[in-house]
């Protein structure tokens, strides 16, 4: 210590007097990671999407072309994109609606103990493997599964059967249908919605809610005009997670889907068995573009005004 201390002190003083150098030292590793590894691979991906596949030789032609993007707009691929975006939108809306009451309770009413318990309950599923949880749901939703059993006991099997006959979202059983997929997506991404919404609601001062009531607004008005606008950035933050995660997922569609592909599966199939790396890359660009449009729309809607 006696010999080390003065050196440590000199270093501290040196850095204290050169904040720019200290900042540079702190930022270089993460920026190097983000800039080179992350952005670099994104650029590589983007470049790949402008190459094309020679259908005859199966070789990637490394020449700039929009042809691959042209392939993206074939009927089958557009279906995949619309199906995925539709599912992502449905999951996002449902997650927002399901998360809000719990987040509201956690932020405004729960005692500190209760709040800790609820946080644990929300986060606990994230501690176990995502794969295990998805396949557990496959069992729950199976024809012989507990959900079907419960529904039968409640004598509601007619309702379930009717739901499964609906074109597009139905299927032979919940475990092989878009409806089942929706349930599982909602389950796996719900924590990513609850946490930011809760954080946003916690930042709404109690006095604003009191002020609204004081000025004559009933609770429904207060919710619509004060609480929701102020919590909206949190909902948007959560929706970025749920929307993006659903757009890119391939496990859930693989486990619970049928032959109707999702973007994630298309990427997997094209870069794997088909070896069509350019089309896989082009597919990967789709969620990025959708998210960019989504964020612009959210900003236009004033989602970030209260930040």
């Amino acid at each position, binding site marked *: 210590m006696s010999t080390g201390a003065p050196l440590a002190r000199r270093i501290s003083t040196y850095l204290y007097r050169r904040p720019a150098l200290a900042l540079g030292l702190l930022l270089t590793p993460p920026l190097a990671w983000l800039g080179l590894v992350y952005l670099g691979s994104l650029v590589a991906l983007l470049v790949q999407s402008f190459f094309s596949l020679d259908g005859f030789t199966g070789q990637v032609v490394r020449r700039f072309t929009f042809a691959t993007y042209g392939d993206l707009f074939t009927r089958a691929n557009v279906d995949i994109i619309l199906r995925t975006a539709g599912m992502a939108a449905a999951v996002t809306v449902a997650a927002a609606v399901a998360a809000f009451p719990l987040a509201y309770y956690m932020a405004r009413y729960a005692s500190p103990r209760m709040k800790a318990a609820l946080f644990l309950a929300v986060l606990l599923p994230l501690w176990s493997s995502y794969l295990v949880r998805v396949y557990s749901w496959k069992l729950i939703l199976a024809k012989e599964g507990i959900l079907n059993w419960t529904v039968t006991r409640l004598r509601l099997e007619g309702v379930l059967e009717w739901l499964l006959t609906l074109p597009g979202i139905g299927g032979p059983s919940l475990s092989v249908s878009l409806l089942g997929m929706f349930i599982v997506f909602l389950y796996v991404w719900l924590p990513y919605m609850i946490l930011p919404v809760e954080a946003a609601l916690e930042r709404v*001062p109690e*006095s*604003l809610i*009191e*002020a*609204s*009531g*004081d*000025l*004559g*607004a*009933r609770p429904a*008005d207060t919710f619509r*005009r*004060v609480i929701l*606008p*102020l919590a909206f950035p949190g909902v948007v933050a959560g929706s970025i997670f749920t929307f993006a995660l659903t757009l890119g997922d391939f496990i859930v569609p693989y486990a619970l889907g049928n032959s109707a592909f999702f973007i994630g599966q298309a990427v997997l199939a094209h870069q794997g068995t088909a070896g069509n790396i350019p089309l896989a890359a082009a597919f990967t660009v789709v969620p990025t573009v959708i998210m960019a449009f989504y964020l612009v729309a959210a900003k236009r809607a004033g989602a970030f*005004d*209260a930040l």
Partner: protein
Amino acid sequence: MTTSIPAVRFTHVSRHFGDVRAVDDVSLDILDGEFFTLLGPSGSGKTTCLRLIAGFDHPTTGRIELQGVEVSSLPPYERDVNTVFQDYALFPHMTVAENVAYGLMIKKVPPRERATRVNEMLRMVQLGGLGRRKPSQLSGGQRQRVALVRALINRPRVLLLDEPLGALDLKLRQQMQLELKAIQQQVGITFIYVTHDQEEALTMSDRLGVFNAGRLEQVGTPAEVYEHPATDFVAGFVGVSNLVSGLVAEAIIGSPQTFTIRPEKILIRGAGEPISDGMCAADGRIRDVIYLGAHTRYRVELAAGGELTVTQQNVDTTPLDVQTARGRTVRLMWHRTHNRQVFTRP
């Protein structure tokens, strides 16, 4: 002022939080059109009383009436009162004009009338051109004014103000005190004002109620409360006061009863000066001198024990006098009539 129905009536109102009696058996009438202040230290129950009137909280027992109608269990949006919050509680996602218009919008007042009244209100508090700003772009004093007119625009029967000037600096606070008082006289609405600042309470109020530990110690005009404090707590909290009791009281007035004497009523005379008729006297030695600009505060150690605080206007005093006063033996004198018997809570 002539109507016999009080704007607010508390009848044996208590509010308990577990074992804590935040408000303890308070009965109080606040008259229509008066500026009434709830004064007390923090935790004395004054803010809880305000919240009971606003409807943010409800009494454990007792009855609250607004304009003769019981409201004890009504929610805030069913009550004809509005509140100016301590932290202003302006909606950050709305402009100043939208904030002020909020109550009218909720009441579905047509947009044109809304705009006219908002402009009128903003002009009244010299914020004419700032309607399109966001609250975050205003200074503390401007936000305070927005909060005030956001409440006033609804023309409530009673306006509640919860330490609205607490966050402002001294100069601005004094200016706003006068402004608030003027606005209150202009609009003729009952103002109920919560503060822990006794000077503010004396400056602005028609009447004030002094709270201590959930109980209402005294209600009266500023002069009554200041000149005739009902309890030792009031004497000590409203202004500075000397509390004299026991042997010292016996030495001065010949009886061991507790009394208070205001520091500014006491005169400092040379040792051994004759005591004139109707005067009390106490001999002592000046222990401490604090020069405060307009006046000087002396702490005098009494021969009979204890000490008295004395303030003297600096009319002819020179700074040198002040410096050399320490240690001098003096005789303190004051009119017997300035002594106030007070009730001491055991």
